[in-house]
């Protein structure tokens, strides 16, 4: 546990010292939301469309962060030092925890900005919260693993997103199914609402599964 916390501290310090990564992701997410808000300014957004657009923002702000997890370690030559000094589980959990915290923070900022700029309300905040929690779990689990896989390849930064985005397809389906109802899409009786809740919890389940299986895969990827 101490090693995990030390790893988390190290990630935090690295990000703060070279804040370029965080700024890039923030600017990217804000620009994405503003572009969508400007494009839909004269239209009344429906829950279905809004859920899809919000997911585009969440996905691409997460994709910007992928290269920073492990690719930076390989480029700065610190990966070898980590392999020598830190147990592999601690490396994985430290990186994932930071990634999760970052995704939660960005999701909160992106969704607040999105709701403010598009003047949308959230009729079902509970479902919205479950959907966002599941999204953050799934996004952070998948992107951490894909970043570790891509770290040793030739065209790292491009490949990391190429690997992660297709794996996130089920997450996108579940996410949109939950968020569309949370954002007020037409609900045709209690069955649709139940399905939306199931999609929300399915997303949380997928996220937990991807995080739980992550250390096993990571051990294979990390070993030399």
């Amino acid at each position: 546990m101490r090693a995990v916390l030390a790893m988390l501290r190290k990630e935090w310090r690295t990000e703060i010292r070279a804040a370029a990564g965080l700024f890039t992701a923030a600017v990217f997410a804000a620009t994405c939301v503003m572009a969508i808000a400007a494009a839909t300014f004269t239209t009344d957004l429906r829950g279905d469309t809004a859920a899809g657009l919000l997911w585009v923002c969440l996905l691409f702000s997460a994709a910007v962060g992928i290269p920073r997890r492990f690719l930076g370690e390989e480029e700065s030559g610190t990966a070898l030092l980590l392999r020598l000094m830190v147990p592999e589980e601690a490396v994985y959990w430290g990186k994932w925890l930071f990634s999760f915290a970052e995704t939660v923070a960005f999701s909160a900022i992106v969704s607040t900005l999105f709701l403010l700029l598009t003047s949308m309300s959230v009729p079902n905040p509970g479902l919205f919260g479950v959907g966002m929690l599941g999204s953050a779990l799934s996004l952070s689990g998948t992107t951490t693993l894909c970043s570790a896989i891509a770290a040793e390849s030739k065209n790292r930064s491009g490949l990391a997103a190429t690997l992660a985005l297709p794996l996130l397809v089920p997450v996108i389906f579940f996410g949109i199914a939950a968020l569309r109802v949370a954002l007020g899409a037409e609900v045709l009786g209690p069955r649709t609402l139940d399905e939306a809740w199931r999609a929300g919890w399915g997303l949380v389940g997928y996220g937990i599964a991807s995080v739980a299986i992550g250390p096993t895969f990571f051990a294979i990827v990390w070993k030399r």
Partner: protein
Amino acid sequence: METVNRLVIGLLGALMAVGTAATFMVSDAPKFQAPELARIVFWHLPCALVGSFLWLAGQVCAVGYLHTKEARWDQRSISAMEVGTLFGVLAMVTGILFSKVQWGAWWNWDPRQSSYLMVLLIVSAYFALRASVDEPGRRASLSGVYAVASLVPVLFLTFIYPKLKVVQTLHPNVIQGGELTFDPQYRVVFYAMLLLILGLGISLVNLRFRTLRLESALDIQDAELANRDHSAAPRVVRPLSLSPTDQSAASAIGEAFGATDHPR
């Protein structure tokens, strides 16, 4: 072994010709816009099923590699993934062709079409990863992990998503209560074509696997030769023994280009 392989491929070719002829002997399907063109189902559906089966087989072989670290499991995995992709692309192409005839557009964003395209994207990402790592051991491990990690999305997109009640597809539901809804005549030909295409797929995987084994054996031989000479530079020419036909072809090249010795 070589004779058996040739016999199997010859037999498959002959059966495939018979199967193709049989697809034209069944009556037209009157429910479709172009009843005579509905026969494409005998190619489209088996290609889609065999493609998915081979991808899953490739992912299972990747688990085998991660468990044993034996190169042959990785070779089996990549062989199945490559041949699976070939069948996946064929299913896509035949689907697009029939989509234009039946639904009036090349692409309809039908959930089944889209989910199959996404599976193809996942497989493409797998190939992109393999192409980006040079060292064979690392390539096998990293792509093995990616193949296993993509198992859940592939299963979801292939079997779960198209069957969800909220998903409305233009594709006819051909399996109801575990039974094919085809007319009996179509059913027989369909099963025959499915078996033949599966057989073709497996024999292609086997052929690709043997090619990979040979390539790997040649690489090992090259490395041994380079070590024996205590030279940092690997040999460029492989010491292949030439068959009499190859020798005569080689001497013809030698004569044509004015060389005095046969190239070896």
